[in-house]
């Protein structure tokens, strides 16, 4: 029974990634497989590099255990980041909870299958770190059968710990959000925190690594004192210490056993907990008439912001441009030192700073792809749009407008703050504000057009539409290409031989023309394509 249930969960997970329309299904599967392989190889390489850097210094310091403890720490962190939200949908908000409970299946078996799936997922995450950890150790120290077996055994146990922690955090989130009117806030907050931690790690990885290598001894003492389970893992793996091995096994198995015991006792209550938005009694208000364009734009804005994760994924550029502007205000030196590298070419540093910041802001403005899935997310509600007495352009343009209304204020603010922080001249300041705005407008129209040409209406959620949609991906690539091409042309083909003011003007003209052409297509040429949507 449990095997059947776990297999059902795994099939569901595969369907989420691989669900496809009748056309191009095989090609899509291959594309996803290639992308997944690419991601795994990149991560394996990245963590392999880290372990290669720390292995020898730790050995010299006699801190072999710290090497494995570090792998354990990274594994637990990656598993937690990767599985917290999944735990929520897998265990606490699974749509088939009631269906399975109506069958002659023990609730504990249902829970076991779900936790089993979570364990398998975390095993996959931890393998991304543990495999390079073991391989690098063998490469640096030679093959030791007992140590390898110990490592593999302990690494197999490791996912139990983050799985238990994910269950606890997921339970708390489910408990809080089930009583909240707007649970998006919690999701947004937690996603923001995870993302901030991720970017902090990425931006500071070099510094963290240097500090780790310099102060390995001190760090070892801290871990030994504050995180004894990791010390136990390290000692058990590196030295085969029996007592530490038992401590590590207990650290992995006991929390999971406790969580399983507690959750299985209350699984029926959790699974049948009343969810959805809270009922609010309506009090009559004076209604106001709005124009068709305004009504549709507001509706699209509500649509984009209905799912916090959709907003976060589609509006990543907004978030990053604000972060960039704030960082610039607080730590201007850091940005200048990065841009300073370009001064080595002999070009005026100040000239490059403004141009590069402008390019960076444009790049971030182009990263927003809210409109890139705006047609696909109509999904089952497509009939509604098609039954309205409106032309295709009247329906499609508000999708782009909503994209702009959400993104433009932050883009303008980021441009103004950046111009102020860098004290650039008037032309550059104008370019830092206007060019990202033009990129945003172009991308908003491009996203709608592309999604109109390549829509899919069978996504399980809006989030899947924006995360795995072809048009949203291409929209983001276009945003990046829009910036990369003029920068490359200016720097490498024209060797910065003319004032960047001309570059700004040229880019603005191209973007304005492109936007106009897309606008014209959506208002004059998109009707036939729109009518053909969902024709079976």
């Amino acid at each position, binding site marked *: 029974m449990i095997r059947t249930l776990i297999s059902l969960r795994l099939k569901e997970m595969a369907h989420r990634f691989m669900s496809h329309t009748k056309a191009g299904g095989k090609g899509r599967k291959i594309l996803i497989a290639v992308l997944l392989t690419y991601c795994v190889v990149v991560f394996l390489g990245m963590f392999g590099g880290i372990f290669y850097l720390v292995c020898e210094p730790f050995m010299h310091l006699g801190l072999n255990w710290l090497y494995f403890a570090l792998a354990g720490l990274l594994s637990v962190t990656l598993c937690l980041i990767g599985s917290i939200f999944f735990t929520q949908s897998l265990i606490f908000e699974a749509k088939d909870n009631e269906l399975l409970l109506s069958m002659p299946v023990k609730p504990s078996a249902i829970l076991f299958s779900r936790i089993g799936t979570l364990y398998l997922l975390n095993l996959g995450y931890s393998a991304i770190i543990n495999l390079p950890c073991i391989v690098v150790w063998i490469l640096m120290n030679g093959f030791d059968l007992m140590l390898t077996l110990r490592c593999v055994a302990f690494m197999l146990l490791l996912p139990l710990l983050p799985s238990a922690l994910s269950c606890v955090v997921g339970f708390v989130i489910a408990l809080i959000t089930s009583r909240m009117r707007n649970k998006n806030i919690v999701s947004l907050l937690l996603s923001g925190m995870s993302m901030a931690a991720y970017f902090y790690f990425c931006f500071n990885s070099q510094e963290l690594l240097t500090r780790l290598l310099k102060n390995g001894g001190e760090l070892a003492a801290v871990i030994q004192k504050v995180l004894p389970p990791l010390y136990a893992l390290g000692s058990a793996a590196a030295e085969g210490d029996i007592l530490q091995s038992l401590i590590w096994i207990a650290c992995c198995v006991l929390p999971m056993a406790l969580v399983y015991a507690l959750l299985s006792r209350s699984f029926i209550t959790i699974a049948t907990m009343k969810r*959805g*938005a*809270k*009922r*609010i*009694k*309506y*009090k*009559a*208000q*004076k*209604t*106001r*008439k*709005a*124009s*068709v364009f*305004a*009504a*549709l734009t*507001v*509706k699209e804005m*509500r*649509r984009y912001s*209905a*799912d916090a994760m959709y907003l976060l994924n589609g509006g990543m550029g907004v978030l990053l441009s604000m972060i960039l502007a704030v960082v610039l205000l607080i730590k201007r030196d850091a940005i200048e030192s990065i841009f300073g590298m370009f001064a080595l070419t002999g070009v005026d540093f100040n000239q490059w700073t403004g141009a590069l910041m402008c390019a960076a802001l444009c790049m971030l403005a182009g990263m927003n792809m809210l409109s890139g899935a705006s047609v696909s997310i109509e*999904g*089952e*509600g497509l*009939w*509604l749009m*098609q*039954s*309205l*007495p*409106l*032309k295709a352009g009247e329906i499609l343009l508000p999708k782009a407008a909503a994209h702009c209304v959400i993104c433009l204020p932050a883009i303008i603010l980021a441009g103004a703050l950046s111009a102020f922080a860098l004290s650039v001249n008037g032309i550059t300041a104008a370019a830092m504000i206007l060019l990202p705005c033009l990129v945003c407008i172009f991308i908003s129209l491009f996203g709608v057009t592309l999604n109109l040409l390549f829509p899919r209406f069978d996504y399980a959620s809006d989030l899947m539409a924006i995360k795995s949609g072809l048009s949203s991906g291409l929209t983001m690539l276009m945003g990046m290409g829009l910036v990369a091409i003029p920068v490359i042309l200016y720097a490498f083909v024209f060797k910065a031989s003319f004032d960047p003011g001309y570059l700004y003007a040229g880019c603005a003209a191209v973007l304005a023309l492109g936007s106009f052409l897309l606008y014209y297509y959506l208002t004059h040429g998109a009707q036939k394509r729109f*009518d*053909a949507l*969902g*024709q*079976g």
Partner: protein
Amino acid sequence: MLRIENLTKAYGDKKAVDGLSLHIKPGEIYGFIGHNGAGKTTTLKSCCGILRFDEGDIFVDGVSVKKDPIACKEKIAYIPDNPDLYEFLTGIQYLNFVADVYKVSAEDRQARIERYAKELGIYDDLATKIGAYSHGMKQKLAVISALIHAPRLLLMDEPFVGLDPKAAHTLKGIMREICDQGGAIFFSTHVLEVAEKLCDKIAIIRGGKLVIAGDTETVRGDTSLENVFLELVEEEA
């Protein structure tokens, strides 16, 4: 009010509707009956300009759906069998959205929302997100949104599914009222007793082809509509 002429629509090789012709006059409630997959939804969706069709034409008040779908849609309201509404909006936000699109004045929409929402028993829930609605509540909201611009022609696909008895009774009253004011209603249903009591005319479709159409009394003859329908289905088998 609605004239369907030789409507043909195929999905790949399969003809969902094959040469269907019907005429619904002002003041008529026209029932559309058929087994699952007979072509009822395809016909209704074609009438309101959602589905493109291969042959024939459909006229709403003399205007071709093929040639001027926007003008036709302004006179029509459509309620699908499974109302997938915007779950991220509240009931009142959704109604205002539809009213804005149909350019309904603030006074008219306020009066209609209040009247229909109260009659259908959903008024107190209008501030709640549609995502939290039951199927029946969504159906009621779809009905109100369809009535908000006072359409001349109401196209409904299984409108009574999910409605509680009181709401179903209210909807029947509203349907009769629309027809008394010169409008027309074309709806599909599997509830033959309802069709028999409510409809002025009935059409039965089988395998995409019209089998019989006419006054309810004529179609029913001396027996019940259920018997007529079952006989026709058995003939096919």
